[in-house]
């Protein structure tokens, strides 16, 4: 600790941090541009100048850059003295000389850090009367808009894009006041994290191109705290709505999960909410029906003697799934995960439950000092985890910083010091991944060989772990090297997941983490689940689609109620078709049209994540609450409400007490004790501050008395929200709410995302009052931990002449069901293909124009061949989850190469 004096006031602060960090953490207003809490200091913009004095008697002091000055005990500083104030005003004046007269048409306007800092430093009038330099802009793809004239050369963009996110195609060009930030030539930004430029750039150079299509100022967006639904990571987000449309998604800081950033799938994948394929009316055999007709019809089917089953969903909330379980009964509820998917998810859940390694949060992943990735292409399946893992390789070089007397936040010096040295990072994958550039070693293996490598690593860490037999020399050596490194690390991390489609890979990862723990190392394990609530539904119910289909064949229920899933994405075509033949009435509760709803006898239109509240469990086992952003038009309502209506119609007693979502969650917690901590992750609906709700609309929300005036001159009463402490209004408590209820980041004088500083306990630390969310899985560490080593080690893969083994390939843009509805993501996603090694292709007489037939269950699909050098011989990569290619889910094992009909 250190005592420092700022403007004559004494503060107790942490020594060694930089002064800007400290001043902002104390709540002082000090302008800055180039410093970013996640990127550190470089001292490029000279905006954060303050005066530092030698001692008590020093009257003059000297100007220093706060972001470059470490705090030490007894320091004396002034922020408000005339000289540093003038200095800062002059700096911003010169930064602004060439700035265009764009604010009214600039998408940053109203949430612009440059505007804020200009006002804060008192540069009110522009005196520059000469010609301004201009730049030509570039086309940077469907997501990011470029307007280079507005740049103030703070270098944040390239520091984020290149240094932090590992992108290669954004750089600075030219010199002096001609410095240009862009690509070498026009083209789509390659990084999966390019969307963060929108928030990182303090000006309007990089703005959200999807938002631009339906542009709305920050002050006009109705927002609520929410959770991303596009992968298992569960990033915290702030979606914003205007005129009944979801308009954009911003990051919501959570120091344990996503921190300051989001991936592009999460940021730009929201268009499905506004899609023309939304289901907006209840339907009975594809005719629009009234709410009551639909409900009484479905209840009629439910009451049929043969009973009903319910199929839940990994993309619906715990509450909706639970409500469905209540409707059909525990034995007749199935979790909706596909055959393979469910086996993998329950295995992963078992591993996380048993430990002894603790499941790692994204924050833990960032802090790991040795990483082994087994079979998961993290950038494609859990993008934000990949961004965090990328930072982990900096930890080992950082350890020697203190000897060199370099503080960790001194980014320029740290990177200079570390040069290219990186901590240990091993990747075993089927094909090249986007993290290969930071890897110490990469292994390209068939899934079973990845598992064997993992088993061997575990064996080399702990002798008692089973060893694979007949391992080749090369792999054996590699396993030894990896084992050695992991054993000697302080916080090693094993990363795997359901992505490889191979349970042995998960088991191998479990063995490695168990071996590490039993040799006394605090190892972490991070297992990725495919969807936003996969872990949650697995905890709720073990039985999946496989069991559901078996049940149907054995018991012939009268009706099936399908909650928010497309069955055709989960099971083989013929199996699902058979289900539809077997069961005469299938009812769907969903928000988007899909193959399942197309065949359904009844459809109830439910709200998307933006139109409902609920809780979900991410891959870490963290249960997080998401809140409704806006009220959808009647009759769309939350899934759980539809199910409650059905329950009420059947005369269920419990449902009578379900007045709001809290009641549902309470029933859930009392029936499923494992999920009871979910109660702590939500703020109950009757929570009030000073007797008031927390408004979803900013206090400057405009146009209230005109936006509906063309429909009805009488303004409607704002919709009530029984389910949460938030209000669909601008009235309520406008101070800082509890961390989980932060609908937006704003503070007086801080209109941009940088106002987040005011919501954190310490800049870059947890949110005030603790990060929202609650961990569900805390394994028992050490001896007492249940479970043992997995020992069913698969045989080595040996390619067979003319045959290829199917391996799953995932795409950040394309593999997710919902985000592909965004035109930008649809543009960037691949079309169905089969990837093979060029040598294999040659052997089979194929070229890049060829098409081959790949079997999928009882059918087969003709796919276009693409060459992929990084695949092991004898393996074919099949892209998962593409909308026009649901058959991929049924593809597995090896097949004989047969040329398709050439078109």
């Amino acid at each position, binding site marked *: 600790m250190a005592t420092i004096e700022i403007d004559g006031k004494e503060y107790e602060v942490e020594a060694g941090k930089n002064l800007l960090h400290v001043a902002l953490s104390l709540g002082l207003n000090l302008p800055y541009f180039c410093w970013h809490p996640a990127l550190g200091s470089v001292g490029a913009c000279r905006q954060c100048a303050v005066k530092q004095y030698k001692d008590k008697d020093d009257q003059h002091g000297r100007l220093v850059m706060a972001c470059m000055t470490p705090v030490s005990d007894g320091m004396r500083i002034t922020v408000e003295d005339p000289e540093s104030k003038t200095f800062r005003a002059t700096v911003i004046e010169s930064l602004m000389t060439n700035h265009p007269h764009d604010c009214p048409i600039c998408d940053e306007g109203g949430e612009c850090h440059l505007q804020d800092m200009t006002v804060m430093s008192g540069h009110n009038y522009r005196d520059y009367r000469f010609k301004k330099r201009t730049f030509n802009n570039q086309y940077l793809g469907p997501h990011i808009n470029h307007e280079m004239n507005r740049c103030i050369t703070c270098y944040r963009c390239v520091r984020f894009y290149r240094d932090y996110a590992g992108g290669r195609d954004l750089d600075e060009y030219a010199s002096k006041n001609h410095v240009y930030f862009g690509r070498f030539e026009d083209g789509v930004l390659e990084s999966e994290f390019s969307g963060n430029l929108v928030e990182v750039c303090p000006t309007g150079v990089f703005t959200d191109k999807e938002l631009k299509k339906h542009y709305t100022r920050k002050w006009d967006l109705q927002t609520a705290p929410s959770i991303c639904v596009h992968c298992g990571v569960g990033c915290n987000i702030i979606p914003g709505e205007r005129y009944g449309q979801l308009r954009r998604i911003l990051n919501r800081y959570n120091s344990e999960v996503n921190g300051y950033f989001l991936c592009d799938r999460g940021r730009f994948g929201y268009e499905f909410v506004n899609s023309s394929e939304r289901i907006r009316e209840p339907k009975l055999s594809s005719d629009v029906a009234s709410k009551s007709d639909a409900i009484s019809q479905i209840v009629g089917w439910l009451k049929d003697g043969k009973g009903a089953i319910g199929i839940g969903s990994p993309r619906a909330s715990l509450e909706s799934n639970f409500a469905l379980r209540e409707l059909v009964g525990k034995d007749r509820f199935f979790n909706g995960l596909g055959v393979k998917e469910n086996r993998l998810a329950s295995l992963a859940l078992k591993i996380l439950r048993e430990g002894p390694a603790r499941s790692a949060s994204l924050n833990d992943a960032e802090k790991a000092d040795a990483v082994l990735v087994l079979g998961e292409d993290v950038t494609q399946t859990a993008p934000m985890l990949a961004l965090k893992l990328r930072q982990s390789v900096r930890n080992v070089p950082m350890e020697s910083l203190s000897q060199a007397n370099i503080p960790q936040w001194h980014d320029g010096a740290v990177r200079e010091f570390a040069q290219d040295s990186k901590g240990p990072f091993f990747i075993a994958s089927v094909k090249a991944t986007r993290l290969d550039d930071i890897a110490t070693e990469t292994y390209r293996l068939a899934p079973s060989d990845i598992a064997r490598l993992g088993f061997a690593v575990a064996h080399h860490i702990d002798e008692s772990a089973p060893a694979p037999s007949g391992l080749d020399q090369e792999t054996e050596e590699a396993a030894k090297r990896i084992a050695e490194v992991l054993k000697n690390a302080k916080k090693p991390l094993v990363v795997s997941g359901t992505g490889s489609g191979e349970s042995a890979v998960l088991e191998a990862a479990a063995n490695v983490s168990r071996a590490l723990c039993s040799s006394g190392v605090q190892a972490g394990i991070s297992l990725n689940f495919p969807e936003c609530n996969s872990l949650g539904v697995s905890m709720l119910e073990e039985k999946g689609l496989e069991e559901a289909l078996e049940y149907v064949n054995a018991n012939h229920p009268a009706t099936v109620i399908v909650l928010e899933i497309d069955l055709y994405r989960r099971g083989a075509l013929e199996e699902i078709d058979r289900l539809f033949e077997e069961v005469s009435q299938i009812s769907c509760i969903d928000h988007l049209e899909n193959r399942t709803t197309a065949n359904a006898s009844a459809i109830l239109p439910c709200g998307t994540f933006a139109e409902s509240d609920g809780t979900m469990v991410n891959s870490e086992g963290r249960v997080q609450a998401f809140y409704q952003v806006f009220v959808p038009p009647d009759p769309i309502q939350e899934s759980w409400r539809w199910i409650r209506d059905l329950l009420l119609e059947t005369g269920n007693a419990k449902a009578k007490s379900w007045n709001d979502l809290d009641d549902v969650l309470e029933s859930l917690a009392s029936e499923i004790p494992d999920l009871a901590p979910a109660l702590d992750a939500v703020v109950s609906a009757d929570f009030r501050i000073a007797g008031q709700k927390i408004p979803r609309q900013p206090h400057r929300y405009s146009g209230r*008395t005109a936006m509906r005036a063309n429909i009805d001159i009488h303004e409607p009463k704002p919709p009530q929200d029984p389910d949460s402490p938030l209000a669909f209004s601008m009235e309520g408590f406008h101070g800082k709410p509890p961390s989980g209820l932060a609908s937006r980041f704003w503070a007086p004088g801080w209109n941009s995302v940088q106002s987040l500083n005011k919501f954190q306990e310490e800049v870059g630390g947890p949110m005030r009052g603790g990060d929202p969310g609650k961990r569900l899985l805390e394994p028992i560490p050490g001896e007492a931990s249940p479970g043992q080593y997995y020992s069913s080690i698969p045989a080595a893969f040996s390619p067979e002449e003319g045959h290829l083994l199917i391996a799953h390939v995932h795409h950040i843009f394309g593999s997710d069901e919902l985000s592909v509805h965004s035109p930008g993501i649809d543009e960037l996603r691949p079309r169905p293909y089969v990837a093979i090694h060029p040598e294999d292709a040659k052997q089979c007489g194929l070229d890049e124009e060829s098409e081959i037939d790949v079997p999928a269950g009882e059918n087969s699909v003709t796919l276009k061949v693409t060459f992929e050098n990084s695949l092991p011989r004898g393996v074919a990569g099949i892209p998962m989850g593409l909308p026009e290619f649901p058959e991929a889910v049924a593809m597995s094992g090896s097949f004989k190469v047969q040329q398709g009909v050439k078109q």
Partner: protein
Amino acid sequence: MLSLLRTMWIIFLHMFHKRETQEYPDVLPQQPPRWRGRIILSRDPDGEERCVACNLCSVVCPVACIALQATEDGHGRRYPEFFRINFSRCIFCGLCEEACPTYAIQLTPDFEMGEYNRKNLVYEKEDLLISGPGKYPDYNFYRVAGLAIGGKGKGEADCEEPPVNTRSLMP
């Protein structure tokens, strides 16, 4: 008594004064140009819509009676897709005009807006847009802004250098 007579005398003299009563609506009053009456949207000297849909008028409006949505033409020029003022709420405070960075929104001397039906007080862009520049004949926002629009490329606005050649190494 005296004061009574005096008062009567003064009143008598009024008969010879110019009349204050205005024969409205037969004789229309002359309002000063800065009178805060019916709001219009003006056009720039090129005859294009001035409003750039920046939302400043709507956010400053104390009764929140302006709603609009921004959109763009194919060449990057931003304009309001719709622009609605609910005059049944407007208090004619003139803050929107003050906030407007482009002189698009202006209050005019016209105050004759009475309606029997409140609904008729909802004005859409078509009702608001006039054909000229209103009180400010010269200002043309897109001529000074750095944004490129159809017919005005980068470096072609007032007081701009031609775009930098980023490949050049010249000092």
